[in-house]
Structures are given as C-alpha cells and as structure tokens.
C-alpha cells in the first residue's frame, strides 16, 4: 500500500495487472492503469477489446480473476491477506460501489420509479440521506441538466438523451469519487448525443475524476486529459490526445484510426 502518499497525491483509480477470462477467452490481459484525481481518461478501441469489461472491474460488476483494482487507495472486491485474495463481504462491496458512479449504454433507469425517485432512492436507502435533503439535491441536479420539469414523470416518457442525463444525475446524487461512463452515447439518436456530451463536459470542467469508454473520438480528443487505446484485452498505447490522434506510434492504433475515419466519412 502506498501509504506514504498523502490523500491528495494518491491516484483515484489504480489497476495493477488485472486479468480476466470468460471461459477460455481472455478478455483482460495484465492491464495496468492509473487515473489521477480530477483526471478525465478516455478509453477507445475496437469492439471486443475489453474496454467495457475493464470499466466494470473498477466497481466490481465484473469479478476479475487476477491482479488488483484500487479506488482511492482501497482495494475493490478483494483484499489481500498474506498474499491470498479474499473476497470482501457483500456489505463492503456495496459500500465501495456507493462511492463509484457508473452510467451505462442503455441508461438502465428504474422504469417503475419517477425521475425524482430514481435519483433519490439510493442516497436515502443506501447512504442514509434524509428524504428532504435527497430531494433538494435531486432537484438541484435536475435543474443543472435542464430537466427539472420532468421530475415527476416516469422514465418511459423521456427521450433517450433525457433518460441518459437523468442516469448521470442518479449516479451523481451519490456524490461519487469517480464517474465511469460506458459508451453512454452509443444507443442514442445522433441528434441527442450532444446534450449528453455537454453534461459530461461540464462534469469534467468541475474536476470530476472520469473514466470514459467511448466511440466519440472528437469528444475524447477535446475533453480527455489522456487517451488509452485498448485492443485484444490489453492497453496498446496511451498518451496525450492530440499527440495520440495525430501521431500514433503503434500500427494497431494507426489501423484503428484509419478504419474509424473511413466509416465516419461513409456515414
């Protein structure tokens, strides 16, 4: 444990040689990655490269087989005791997750709850926030994303872009240390992508630590502090966005960007 680091210097997210297999297929192959406080890291790469799995290991929605994941200095899902991996209790895992926000490709709002209740349920029931305060916080978040007037609607009445913004608000209401975004614009109609990216940009501007799996290259290039390119379960190349896009050093990234540009021109 890097206890000699002060809380401020300690990385927010740290993956150490994380590996994971689905059956015989190795999805993550000794992946190491460090995300600093306030940093916005974008993960790009072809489908099936392990980006989403990597993201889901950070809040232990995927139980990685080997290596270590740390969030704010605490190991996620497992703790090491005399060199052996011991699975944390359900209570500990839930507590860890309550500090990590995640937004999914398919929004995943709770369809039987109003927008407001979607946002207040977990703060009240998990964090013990008073209902009044949770509601005040939720309304503040809703007004920030421009959806205050939808507070009492069911999610089904909202457009995809609106649902996704509510999903972001729901995650933010837990006051997470880090926000994970899993291809959050991929299911949206093109004209709705912008409103969601705008919310994400404002979050990044506020200094939220963010790990963003995305196909939006333009967005990644403009907003991210660092780009990570993954292929076949490994990080192939990472670095400054402008450098990485203009002068990729690996053949695989060059090929990926070329394919991306071609499909972009065609569409």
């Amino acid at each position, binding site marked *: 444990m890097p206890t000699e680091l002060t809380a401020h210097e300690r990385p927010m997210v740290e993956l150490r040689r994380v590996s994971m297999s689905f059956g015989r297929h190795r999805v993550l192959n000794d992946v190491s990655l460090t995300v600093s406080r306030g940093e916005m890291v974008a993960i790009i790469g072809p489908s099936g490269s392990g980006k989403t799995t990597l993201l889901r290991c950070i*809040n232990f*929605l995927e139980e990685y087989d080997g290596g270590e994941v740390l969030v704010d200095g605490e190991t996620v899902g497992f703790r090491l005791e005399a060199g052996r991996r011991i699975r944390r209790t*359900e*209570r500990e895992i*839930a*507590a*860890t*997750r*309550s*500090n*990590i*926000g*995640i937004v*999914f490709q*398919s929004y*995943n*709002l*709770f*369809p*039987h709850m109003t927008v407001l209740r979607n946002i207040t*349920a*977990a703060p009240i*029931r*998990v*964090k013990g926030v008073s209902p009044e305060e949770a509601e005040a916080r939720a309304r503040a978040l809703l007004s920030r994303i421009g959806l205050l007037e939808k507070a009492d609607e*069911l999610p*089904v009445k909202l457009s995809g872009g609106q649902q996704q913004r509510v999903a972001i608000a*729901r*995650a933010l209401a*837990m006051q997470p240390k880090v926000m994970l975004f899993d291809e959050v614009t991929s299911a949206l109609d093109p004209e709705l992508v912008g409103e969601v990216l705008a919310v994400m940009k404002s979050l990044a501007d506020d200094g939220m630590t963010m790990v963003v799996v995305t196909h939006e290259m333009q967005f990644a290039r403009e907003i991210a502090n660092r780009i990570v390119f993954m292929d076949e379960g490994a990080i192939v190349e990472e670095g400054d966005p402008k450098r990485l896009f203009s002068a990729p050093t690996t053949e695989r990234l060059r090929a990926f960007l070329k394919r991306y540009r071609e499909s972009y021109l065609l569409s």
Partner: protein
Amino acid sequence: MLPDVLIANFGYLLRGAVVTVGLAAATIVPSAVIGMLLALAKVFGGITVRAIVDVYLYVIRGVPLLVLLFFMYYALPYSGIDVPPLFGGVLVMSLYFGAFMAEIFRAAILSLPRAQWDAARSLGMRRRLMFRIVIYPQVFRLAAPPFVNTCILLVKSTSLVSIISLWELTLAGREVAERTFAPLQIFGGVAIIYFVLCYALSRYGLYLEERMRFAH
C-alpha cells in the same frame, strides 16, 4: 326471467359462492408465496436446490389436482396421517398452484433486463434492498397478467374439493339439485355464478395489464 326453483335457492347458492371465494383467497396467498420461493430457488439456487425444485414441479404438473386431493383425503389417513379436509384442501391446492405460479414468477424474474440488476448494484444497494425496491416491484408488474390468469383457473378448481366433501358452491348446487330434481336450472345458476366470478377476475387482469404497461 330466472326459473323460480333457482330464485328460491339462490341465497343458498350464494352462500356457497362466498365459501368458494374464501377458499380461493385462502389458496392464492400461500400459492403465491410458494411460487415466489420456488422461482427464487430455481433462479438463484445451487444445482442441488434446482434439481429438487425441478422434481417437485414435474411431479405436480404431471399429476391431476383431483388425484392429489384424493391422495390427501383417502391415502394419508390410511398411513395414519389425518388431515382435516379444509386445511388439507387448501394445502394441496396451494402446493399445486404454487408450482404454476413458480413458472410465472421465474419467467418474470428472468425477463427483467440484466442491466436493472447492474444499475441497482452499482448504486451500492445490497441484496435485500435491491429486491425490495428494484426487483420485486418490476417482477410483480410483469407477472400480473399471467398471475391473474392462474387465479381464474384456481377459482374454478376449487369446485374439485366438493368431491372430498368440502361444502362450497358446487356441493351446494349438488345438494339443491338432488333435493329439487331441477339440475338444469340449478347447475345453470351455479355456472353463471362461477362465470361472473371469473369474468370479474379477468376484467381486473386486463385493467392491471393496462395500468402497469411500461417499456424498458
């Protein structure tokens, strides 16, 4: 417009109908509980638990309700176990319909998108809370239409317990028919009462379906 013999005995039949409704209600609650427990065991249980539940479901579904009632009423006393008919009748019907409810709840649980579980977990919800506020409310909504459908079958099946001498609508009808020699009119009346009960239930089912419709 109703035959006089039916009108004269209608009150008696209605009292039978009240017992029928009571029997059905007393059966629906435990069979729903049994169904949910079996469904959870089938979805989340280990291989042994699942195998045991499977055997139970196959046996129950493969044996007629009437045979199960006879087993309780005639066979068990033979082996020294004496079950009061009312308790036994409700118990056997609960076990029987519990097996069908299990399939309904299992299908509902499985049809909830995986993503809903992910969303609940990622917000730090523990199992109990997740089931209470995210999973069950949606499962009940998804299961409501087939559940009501099974309840209709259940109401009609209560007529079988008349054969093990439990007094309810069908047995009341038999008594009256034998006394008055007017089976056509009396059983016609009995049929109408069953029909009204079940029709009300199915309208209620449609209403639920309408009200709870929402997309994922």
